C-alpha cells in the first residue's frame, strides 16, 4: 500500500461507483448546485406495487403495528388532563434479519440480481450488513460486509462484533477495520477487485425499499384505527429511515408530520480512535444524524437519496441513559425485548405522547432485534469496563463518553429540540460552498425543497450568509 495508491483509488471513486451501482448520476445534475432528486428517485422504474412485491418475495415487511397500551398508560400518568396519545410501534424486528434495514436491502439485492452482478458489497457496522447478508442468502449472491469494528488496541465494540457474527451466520464474508474514514478506500478497492454491486444505504433503491414501511404504517393506521397518525417518529442517523418512511406515507395519502430522534453524542468525534469505544450507541446518534441532515451528499454515492431535512418537521435528541431505560420499559411493561438503538424514537415518543391529545395516534416506526453484545446490559457492562460511570439520576446531566445516567423515574424522560432553522441554514451554507456560480432561480427552488422551508427563508439566509462573508473578507 502507498499514499499514492490511496489517492489514485480515491480519484477513481466516481467511475467505480458508476459501475457498482448501475446508475449514472450525471444524468440528474443541472450543472449548478441543484439536481433532479425526483428524477433520480424515479430511475428505479419501480412502482409502490412493484416494491411491495419484491418485499413479499424476500419475506420482508408486513410487520405488525402494535399498540403499547401499558407504556401509553404510564405516559398518561405524567401528562396533563386529556393528554397522552396512544403509542404504536411498528415491530420491524419481525423482518428476517431483525430490523427495518431488510427493506433497504431487499430492493438493492433484487436490483443487483436483475442486473447480473455475482455479489454485493456493503459498508456498514450496523443492522444493514445483516439485512444485505440475509437477502443475498435468499438470492444466491455472494456478500461482503465491510465494517469499522475495532479501536487501535484491537478492542471491538460488542454491538459491531455481534453484527459481524450475524453476517457470518447468514453466509457473508466480513472485512473488519480499525477506526477511520478510509474505510471508504478499502470499500472502493473491494468493489473494483470483485466487480460486485454496491448496496449503498443511500441509493434510490435503498430508500424506495423503506417507502414500503411508510406505506404500510399509514395503511395499517387507517385499517386498524380509521385515522391517520398525529405524528410519526423515526430514529435518525443517515436520514434514509426518515426519508423513505415519509415518502411512503405520502404515497399512501398520509401527510402526518415526521419527527426525527437521535441519541445525543455531542462532544464525541466519530473518527477518533480513542473515543470509538466510549460510545454505547453505534448508530441512531447525532454523530451521524447532524452531519447527514445538514449535508446528505457526504455518503458513499454521488447524490444521496436520503434527504431528511426535506421531510422532517421536528428534530429531537434523547440521551443514552434514556434509551436504555426505555428499552427496559419495553421489556417489563410490554414483554418485548428489542433494541436498544432502535428504541431511540420510542424514548422520544414517551415524552412527545404527553404533548398530544388522548385520542391521537403516535407511531414509532421501528424496533430491531436484540442479542449478545447489542443488549443494553452488554453495552453498559462494556461501557463500565471502558471507565464510563453508570449512574442513576437526571439523564440530561450526562456527559457523552464519561457518564451514562439512567432516569430515577419515568417522569424524567424528555426530549431536547434541535433548532431546525440552524440546520437549514447549515445545509444552505454547505450547498453554496460547492456551487460553481451564484445560485439561480432553479437553485433557490431546489434549496427550498432541500430544507423543507419556503423561498423567503432561503433568500433571507443566502443574503445573511453573503453579508457575513463580506464582513470577514
Amino acid at each position, binding site marked *: 500500500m502507498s499514499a499514492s495508491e490511496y489517492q489514485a483509488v480515491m480519484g477513481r471513486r466516481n467511475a467505480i461507483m458508476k459501475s457498482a451501482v448501475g446508475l449514472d448520476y450525471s444524468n440528474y445534475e443541472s450543472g449548478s448546485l441543484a439536481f433532479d432528486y425526483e428524477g433520480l428517485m424515479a430511475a428505479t422504474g419501480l412502482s409502490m406495487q412493484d416494491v411491495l412485491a419484491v418485499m413479499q418475495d424476500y419475506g420482508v415487511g408486513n410487520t405488525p403495528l402494535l399498540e403499547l397500551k401499558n407504556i401509553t398508560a*404510564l405516559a398518561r400518568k405524567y401528562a396533563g388532563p386529556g393528554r397522552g396519545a396512544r403509542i404504536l410501534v411498528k415491530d420491524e424486528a419481525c423482518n428476517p434479519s431483525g430490523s427495518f434495514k431488510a427493506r433497504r436491502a431487499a430492493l438493492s439485492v433484487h436490483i443487483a440480481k436483475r442486473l447480473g452482478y455475482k455479489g454485493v458489497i456493503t459498508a456498514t457496522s450496523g443492522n444493514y450488513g445483516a439485512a444485505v447478508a440475509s437477502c443475498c442468502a435468499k438470492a444466491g449472491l455472494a456478500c461482503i460486509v465491510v465494517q469499522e469494528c475495532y479501536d487501535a488496541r484491537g478492542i471491538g465494540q460488542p454491538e459491531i462484533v455481534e453484527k459481524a457474527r450475524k453476517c457470518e451466520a447468514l453466509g457473508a464474508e*466480513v*472485512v473488519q477495520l480499525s477506526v477511520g474514514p478510509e474505510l471508504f478506500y478499502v470499500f472502493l478497492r473491494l468493489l473494483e477487485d470483485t466487480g460486485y454491486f454496491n448496496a449503498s444505504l443511500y441509493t434510490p433503491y435503498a430508500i424506495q425499499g423503506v417507502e414500503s414501511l411508510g406505506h404500510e404504517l399509514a395503511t395499517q393506521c387507517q385499517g386498524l384505527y380509521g385515522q391517520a397518525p398525529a405524528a410519526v417518529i423515526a430514529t435518525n442517523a443517515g436520514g434514509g429511515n426518515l426519508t423513505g418512511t415519509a415518502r411512503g406515507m405520502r404515497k399512501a395519502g398520509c401527510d402526518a408530520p415526521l419527527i426525527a430522534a437521535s441519541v445525543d453524542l455531542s462532544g464525541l468525534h466519530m473518527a477518533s480512535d480513542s473515543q470509538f469505544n466510549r460510545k454505547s450507541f453505534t448508530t441512531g446518534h447525532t454523530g451521524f444524524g447532524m452531519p447527514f441532515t445538514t449535508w446528505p451528499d457526504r455518503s458513499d454515492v454521488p447524490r444521496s437519496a436520503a434527504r431528511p431535512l426535506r421531510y422532517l418537521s421536528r428534530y429531537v435528541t434523547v440521551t443514552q441513559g434514556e434509551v436504555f431505560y426505555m428499552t427496559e420499559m419495553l421489556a417489563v411493561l410490554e414483554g418485548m425485548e428489542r433494541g436498544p438503538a432502535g428504541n431511540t424514537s420510542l424514548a422520544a415518543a414517551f415524552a412527545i405522547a404527553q404533548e398530544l391529545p388522548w385520542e391521537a395516534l403516535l407511531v414509532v416506526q421501528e424496533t430491531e432485534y436484540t442479542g449478545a453484545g447489542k443488549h443494553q*446490559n452488554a453495552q453498559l457492562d462494556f461501557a463500565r469496563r471502558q471507565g464510563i460511570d453508570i449512574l442513576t439520576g437526571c439523564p440530561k446531566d450526562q456527559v457523552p463518553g464519561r457518564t451514562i445516567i*439512567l432516569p430515577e423515574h419515568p417522569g424524567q424522560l424528555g426530549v431536547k429540540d434541535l433548532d431546525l432553522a440552524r440546520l437549514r441554514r447549515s445545509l444552505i451554507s454547505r450547498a453554496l460552498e460547492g456551487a460553481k456560480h451564484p445560485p439561480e432561480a432553479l437553485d433557490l427552488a431546489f434549496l427550498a425543497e432541500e430544507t423543507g422551508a419556503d423561498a423567503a427563508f432561503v433568500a433571507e439566509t443566502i443574503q445573511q450568509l453573503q453579508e457575513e462573508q463580506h464582513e470577514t473578507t
Partner: protein
Amino acid sequence: MAKQGDWVQVRSVILQPQERAPNLPSDTQQVPLVQWVKGWLQSDADLGQPARVRTLTGREVAGTLVGEAPGYTHSFGGHIRQLQEARMGIRQALWGKDEQP
C-alpha cells in the same frame, strides 16, 4: 501451528500513519488503519507469522496470522445494578408498590 485448510484470521496494515487521510483527529492519525479478515489458511503457519487466506468469496488476502479457529466471545455482560433498579421502578410506577412481590 495452524495447518493448511484451517479456518483462521489474519491481520494486515492497510495504511501506515503517514499514509492516512488528512484531517483525522490526532489520536487516529498516529495509528495505522488495520484490517482483520477470516478465511482458509493457504499453507501452514504459526501465530504471529505471515500467512495467506482464501476468504468465503474466494479472495486471497495476506496478513499476519492472529487467530486459529476464531469464534465469538461477546455476551450479555455482568449484572448491572442500575438496570435492575430501573426494571423495578418502572413496574412500580405503572402498577403501584402493592403489586410488587
